[in-house]
């Protein structure tokens, strides 16, 4: 029996449930000191005075570091791939404040309580500089095309086709900013030993942390060890290096003590980017049979003036429908706010909301079933560029989902399904996410006890990454799952890929699939204890990639070329069908999601248990985006006003129904083991499915997220 496809429990399950797993904030060192940040509360300005007298007097305080006394640091060069740091601002090396919340002092003390008390006592005066903090009035400019992301794309003349279309819908949507709320806040424990540095840090990008710290503190990369064995949730928020990490290392350097900095929840909001808000236009023209003649999708998102990247909001719109004419354009507004960053399915998470809501509106206009309409426009090759899909069976995903959900029982008329007080609505939308494929260094060892050891510095954020790799390795070597051990999350291991873009499982699997035959050859053609005994060695190990300047440069080149080569060859994506039922209170407009079925075409499923959790987790985030999540940025000041779990409304248990997920389990022929990453696709289409269900329940179309009750009563 193969290990792939079996629902093994996570290998880290027991230590997580018993509390034995050590996270970064659990690392103790003799003489450990604690740090806390003081944040600016002006959008843009210049620090005129920073008074540390009261802070210094707090008992237990070791140092108060500000731009007056901080050693000079430097950021690495911009343009690295993958990107490594969140903001270009070198905090505490400048008297300029670029966003409300920017750290302007770090306090080090004997206890965390003393550090935080003192940090609250640092008094900062600023003289304001002109700033733009209101996204709704900020000036937007067209996004330039880059190697990584197209800012625009077109086929034919979509605007003219829209004008002449027999049926057309043309709509505007808005989505609010979202913040990261991983259960584990960002935490750094930094220990200097001469010019050697060890950092315990929950990250999705060990290489990025190393590179940033190397540049910031002028020490060679090889002297920096980053340990990140367990990460308490990432979602993209731990993909880049944010100021807290650098300042914790700085604090350790200045005080000569091991230092731990645990961001407060508010600290995460003020110093770690989130998802950009968006304004989107989607227009679709079609003939009376529902064949799309024109598809227009444009967007405006924001970046910080000191960091953040464009969000690929229109990407799915170039792949989902076989429209004869297509126009996509992304625009960017620069604001004086904290840089935006990745959050689970950046682009598609909010792009599918607008696109898939509009498709539903078109179906309504055409008196057509929304699934029928989609299938009438299902492409056989990629609509723009005419490339092949590496695989695509969205049709089967819809059939499966519709059957599981009981879609044919739906009566199409809005407000036509009711259960007493509740208006019932059923909605559907397409999920779409293109996982990227990167490269990984790794080593694989076979020992006399018959066990294998895979070593790769990939990232385990709780999704079961190590478990999946043990399954892949077991099958590649033809040994039992239990005989595989996996080491990960440490820069002293061969460098793994950044965990982002749903690449990690596939990228590491590719390395395993390169190493397994190599190991077999090294053992004389067969993987067995006997073969190893003939070699008279305790173990045989093979590896790919080298952790040297040359090795890293080669790795970087391999990564870029693979990324581009991959994209030229064809379009590889996970697709899916999201079905949901909502109940809307007829008097108050309260909306509850009561049922969910997701059916995905996502390649080979390595582990049904962990894959289902990833898909469900994504859907929960989609429910949050649909109904409640919103970062409140005061447009007068640029200050986030709800930096807490009490006021930033994530879905709670009572908001989440049982989520039923299914998949086709058909391999992708271009991927190792046929697998496709499923970390992000779950969130895509989810908000649209809810919005479409709300329309079906109430007859009210809400195009501005979140869909709070005041928008439907």
């Amino acid at each position, binding site marked *: 029996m193969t290990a792939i496809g079996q629902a093994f429990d996570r290998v880290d399950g027991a230590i997580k449930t018993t509390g034995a797993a050590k996270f970064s904030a659990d690392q103790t060192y003799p003489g450990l000191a604690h740090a806390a940040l003081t944040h600016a509360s002006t959008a843009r300005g210049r620090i005129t005075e920073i008074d540390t007298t009261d802070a210094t007097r707090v008992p237990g305080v070791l140092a108060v570091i500000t731009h007056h006394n901080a050693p000079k640091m430097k950021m690495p060069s911009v343009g690295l791939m993958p990107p490594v740091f969140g903001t270009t601002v070198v905090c505490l090396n400048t008297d300029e404040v670029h966003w409300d919340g920017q750290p302007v002092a770090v306090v080090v003390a004997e206890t965390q309580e003393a550090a935080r*008390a003192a940090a609250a006592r640092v008094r900062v005066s600023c003289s304001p500089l002109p700033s733009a903090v209101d996204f709704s009035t900020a000036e937007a400019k067209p996004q330039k095309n880059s190697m990584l992301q197209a800012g625009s794309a077109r086929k034919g003349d979509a605007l003219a086709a829209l004008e002449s279309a027999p049926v057309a819908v043309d709509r505007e949507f808005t989505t609010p900013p979202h913040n990261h709320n991983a259960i584990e806040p960002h935490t750094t424990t930094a220990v200097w030993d001469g010019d050697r540095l060890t950092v315990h840090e929950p990250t999705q990008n060990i290489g990025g942390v190393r590179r940033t710290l190397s540049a910031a503190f002028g020490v060679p990369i090889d002297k920096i060890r980053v340990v990140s064995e367990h990460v308490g949730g990432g979602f993209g928020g731990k993909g880049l290096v944010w100021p807290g990490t650098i300042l914790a290392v700085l604090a350790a350097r200045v005080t000569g003590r091991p230092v731990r900095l645990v961001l407060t929840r508010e600290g995460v909001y003020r110093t770690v980017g989130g998802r950009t808000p968006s304004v989107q236009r989607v227009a679709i023209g079609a003939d009376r049979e529902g064949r799309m003649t024109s598809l227009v999708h444009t967007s405006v998102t924001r970046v910080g003036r000191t960091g953040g990247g464009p969000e690929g909001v229109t990407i799915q719109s170039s792949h989902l429908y076989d429209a004869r004419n297509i126009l996509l354009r992304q625009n960017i507004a620069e604001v004086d706010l904290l840089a935006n960053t990745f959050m689970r399915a950046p682009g598609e998470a909010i792009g599918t909301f607008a696109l898939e809501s509009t498709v539903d509106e078109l179906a309504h206009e055409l008196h057509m079933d929304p699934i029928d309409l989609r299938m009438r426009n299902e492409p056989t090759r990629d609509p723009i560029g005419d490339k092949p899909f590496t695989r695509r069976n969205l049709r089967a995903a819809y059939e499966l989902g519709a059957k599981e959900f009981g879609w044919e029982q739906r009566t199409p008329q809005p407000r036509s399904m009711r259960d007493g007080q509740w208006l019932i609505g059923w909605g559907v939308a397409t999920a779409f996410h293109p996982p990227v494929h990167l490269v990984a260094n790794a080593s694989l060892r076979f020992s006399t006890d018959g066990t294998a050891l895979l070593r790769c510095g990939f990232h385990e954020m709780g999704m079961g990454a190590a478990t999946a790799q043990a399954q892949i390795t077991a099958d590649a070597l033809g040994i039992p799952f239990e005989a595989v051990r996996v080491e990960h999350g440490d820069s002293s291991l061969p460098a793994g890929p950044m965990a982002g873009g749903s690449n990690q499982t596939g990228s590491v699997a590719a390395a395993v699939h390169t190493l397994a035959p190599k190991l077999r050859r090294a053992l004389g053609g067969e993987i067995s204890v006997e073969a190893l005994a003939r070699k008279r060695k305790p173990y045989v190990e093979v590896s790919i990639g080298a952790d040297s300047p040359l090795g890293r440069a080669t790795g970087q080149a391999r990564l870029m070329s693979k990324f581009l080569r991959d994209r030229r060859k064809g379009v590889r994506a996970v697709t899916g069908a999201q079905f949901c039922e909502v109940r809307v209170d007829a008097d108050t407009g309260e909306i509850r999601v009561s049922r969910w079925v997701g059916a995905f075409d996502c390649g080979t499923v390595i582990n049904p248990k962990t894959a289902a959790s990833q898909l469900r987790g994504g859907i929960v985030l989609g429910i949050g985006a649909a109904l409640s999540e919103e970062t409140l940025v005061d447009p007068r000041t640029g200050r986030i006003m709800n930096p807490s779990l009490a006021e930033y409304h994530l879905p709670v248990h009572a908001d989440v129904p049982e989520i039923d997920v299914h998949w086709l389990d058909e391999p992708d022929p271009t991927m190792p083991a046929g697998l496709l990453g499923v970390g992000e696709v779950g969130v895509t289409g989810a908000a649209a499915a809810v919005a479409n269900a709300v329309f079906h329940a109430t007859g009210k179309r809400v195009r501005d997220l979140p869909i709070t009750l005041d928008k439907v009563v």
Partner: protein
Amino acid sequence: MRTFSYVRADDVDAALRAITDEPNAKFLGGGTNLVDLMREDIERPDTVVDITRLPLAEVEELPDGGVRIGALLRNSHLAAHPVIRSRYPMVAQAVLSGASGQLRNMATVGGNLMQRTRCLYFYDDAAACNKREPGSGCAAIGGFSRSHAVLGASASCAATHPSDLCVALAALDAIVELRSSRGTRRVPLVDFHRMPGDTPEIETVLADDELITAVELPPPPSGVSRYRKVRDRASYAFALVSVAAALDVQDGVVSSIRLALGGVGTKPWRAYQAERALLGAPATEESFRAAARAELADAVSLPHNEFKIRLAESTIVAVLRGMS
């Protein structure tokens, strides 16, 4: 958080002595609000007087058919108490609709009455707020005002009182018992919280040296009762609108009505005008709507809370319809 001293009182007299003798002292109940606010540097007591050991955590049945609830009773225990559940179900429903299980296990009845607003600007010491810093202005006006009051607001402050329990207590004519070294007094709950006026920093009639010792409920009103909370997610959110109602209908006519509102007023809002409109009126949707409108006639909204006026009306109507 700042450094402070901690004193534990084992009896009421010791608590009253401590609050009088120690400068700038505050009582500590469950700490679920006070400690949060101390962490945010908004409450800055020099001394915290722990009163959780005071023998004031009972529910006593009174000869007149009412009950006396000790001020240190935990919210969870209050909601689970058989007498409360059977005779004052509205109280149990209100408590259980608030906060989370963990918070309710800690929170006390007295602390619940005294909890402070959740206005986002009150919580942020970088913002102007007349309640936190008298005279500094009100950043909520022109800012995020979704949670704010449409009834009872002044030009200085429009913050809501966030308690669910207090809304039920307002409907039930609860009496708050207060003690100080000067003696004991009894204040109706509806007079316990103050309107903001020009002094939003003064939220209740409680004097600095007074302790809430009990809340008394008169015998329950006749008919059926209910607490209904409308909020932004299914649990763990403050009310946008809540309604506490007790209704009795005889021969199709409203013979007894108690109505109080949460989430819309600057204090737990007893809807006297609606009650007046309803008493003796036919128990119909039209009467309920007319009564709701009478209560909300003076409502004034800010840019983000206008929906509460409609929502309050429809929730009142839905609750009364469901009970009649």
